[in-house]
């Protein structure tokens, strides 16, 4: 209302747009405050001793227990869990992106018998809630033997392998690969390139934004994953971060300071990755959204 009134009064155009710009900035600043404040608050709480976290009025500035909380966490296996989480997420992201790009390429660019049925089956898998598969999968992991391991319970492969052929990733890669002109691939074939070369030297390089987005997605999927690692990683030394942090929630005593510090330390790598790969992340998400 204010805006139209100003315009009616015959204000110069540049003034109106400056006013608009100020309004936009005000809205943005408010938005930024609301999205950043929870993170700030998390770090503030992470630096408090347990008995200060639920205090009212709450602390708004950092306390002195950050180091004590970190020490407490590391004394209870946090370091090993950090390694487990990072290892699983990195290996999973690399392998699953590789497999998804291979499968997506095949689904998009090769015509073969049963292609659509097979693809449909993959999409179907996307719709099965994981709670349904948890117990049979656990039984499978309990009984499987491979390379002399008596069981796959509490092993890295038990977390990495089951979700490796990720339907969402294959779907995403197929959609992007479909946009790739067949002529481009044929041209390479005419020049005598093997199918492997066509895939790695021609198809993949054009897929970089989607690959990056999928890699980040896959990394985050494993990094945040809770239920399956909780079920299968029964040895404390094999637990991932979310499972270890949840162990701080007891029956009647909860170490809130350590809980906040653990959460903060778990969020930090994700925040850094996001900032570093922000562009790929957004462009990839857009690509998936528009072309889907």
């Amino acid at each position: 209302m204010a805006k139209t009134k100003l315009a009616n009064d015959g204000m110069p155009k540049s003034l109106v747009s400056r006013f608009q710009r100020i309004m936009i900035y005000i809205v943005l600043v408010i938005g930024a405050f609301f999205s950043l404040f929870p993170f700030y608050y998390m770090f503030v709480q992470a630096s408090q001793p347990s008995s200060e976290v639920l205090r009212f009025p709450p602390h708004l500035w950092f306390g002195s227990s950050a180091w004590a909380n970190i020490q407490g966490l590391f004394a209870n296996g946090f370091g090993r869990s950090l390694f487990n989480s990072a290892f699983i997420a990195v290996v999973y992201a690399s392998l699953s992106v590789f497999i998804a790009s291979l499968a997506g390429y095949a689904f998009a660019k090769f015509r073969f018998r049963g292609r659509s049925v097979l693809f449909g089956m993959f999409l179907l898998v996307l719709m099965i809630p994981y709670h349904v598969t948890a117990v049979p999968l656990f039984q499978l992991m309990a009984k499987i033997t491979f390379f002399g391991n008596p069981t796959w319970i509490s092993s890295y492969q038990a977390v990495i392998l089951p979700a490796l052929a990720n339907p969402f990733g294959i779907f995403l890669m197929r959609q992007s690969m479909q946009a790739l002109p067949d002529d481009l691939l044929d041209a390479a074939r005419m020049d005598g390139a093997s199918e492997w070369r066509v895939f790695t030297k021609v198809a993949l390089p054009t897929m970089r934004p989607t690959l990056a987005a999928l890699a980040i997605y896959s990394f985050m999927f494993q990094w945040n994953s809770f239920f399956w690692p909780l079920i299968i990683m029964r040895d404390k030394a094999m637990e991932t971060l979310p499972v270890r942090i949840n162990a701080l929630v007891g029956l009647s005593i909860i170490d809130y300071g350590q809980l906040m510090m653990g959460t903060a330390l778990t969020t930090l790598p994700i925040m850094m990755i996001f900032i570093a790969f922000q562009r790929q992340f957004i462009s990839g998400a857009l690509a998936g959204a528009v072309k889907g």
Partner: protein
Amino acid sequence: MVRRNMHLSLISLLVLTLILAACGSDSTATTTSGNTGSTNPADVKGEITVWAWNVAAKSLEATVPSFNQKYPNVKVTIQDLGRTDVYDRLTTGLQAGGAGLPDVVAIESDRMDVYTATFPEGLADLTSRASKYEKDFDPSKWAQSKINDKIRSIPWDSGPTGLWYRVDIFQQAGVDPKSIETWADLIAAGEKILTTTGGKTKLLPVDIVADDAGFRMMTNQLGVCCYFNSDGKINLTNEKSVQALTLLKEINDKGLIANINGWDGTVAATKNGDVATVPFGVWYSGTIIDQAPDLSGKWDVMLLPAFEKGGNRAANLGGSTLAIPAASKNIDAAWAFVEYALATNEGQNLMMEKFGIWPSYQPAYSADLYSKPVAFFNNQPIWKMFADEIKNIPPATYTKDYAKGQAVLASAQSKVLSQGMDPKQALQEAADELANQTGREIAQ
């Protein structure tokens, strides 16, 4: 048609591969099993793993050194887990026929029925080893561990209830805690406190939409806890349950309930002076010490008020047990540890002293620590009160549908406290709903 057959064969090929992979595996099934019936502790050998939630896990850890003096050849590994995480792992392990389970696992007493109903032989039958201890344990807890006459777990800690209260706030309002004998007395005190604090400090915290802990304590006091009677019929429409919910409504109508959100909300209200009392189990002492160190000397505890003068003031809330999964490969070693930790004064009092885990094992109460004053709690001998309370706790029935009952009751409580529904009607509706969900009859 040809196409479809192709896919079928593809799928069966996949399935076949999985089955084959699963086949060559049973090498874990037979490793060393402990020697049975041995009387010499040094002959009990092996490694055992124990699962418990965090502070409880630490308390068990504290008993390991002295346990190992007695049983030098048993290696105990304690794993700490989040509260519900224990159950997620236990359930999947039992469903998978005992794969990946520990040798000893902590289970809250009120969940025992759920596990024994779903997995009747999932937890080892301890009857022959444990029945000699029956008279030593808190009878209300022992009843929860004994299912169809078989002992499936050993009571660990009990939750005798008390009314934790703020000494300084009572004093300010001119209320003498010793004068409070009935809930009516407490309501009168609550009104006084509310006025003197200018409305800041209410009487007690309730998570109105999610937790009916207050209702359970009150019905336990009256001997009709929890939702079912001993025949397994729904037991909500009786006079006493109505009396309990009516009492909660009365407290709420006078503006004395602080409606809090979950466990963290209760702790925050305790810490920040939003409530003058918290009716909870003995285990809440540890929470207060941990979360409100600056209130040292300002908290004390009395028994829950009675419904009428001279009425029962004893009840139980919470508590847990240790069970041995039947799949354990070293039941002898597991039992040796459970027996030492839970059925000796030494084991139980180590956990009590360092971590405030209240023994279900009654002989432990003869130790000095139970008659000593506790500085944090107004320098009163509060443990003595709980030790004397144990034998007066009326038994309670939980059944495998306990969790369903909790959800239905929380919703009934919310209808009464937030929407003003008549308690009797709300309980009738709750009974119907529970009958619907469980197929159980409603007791007349």
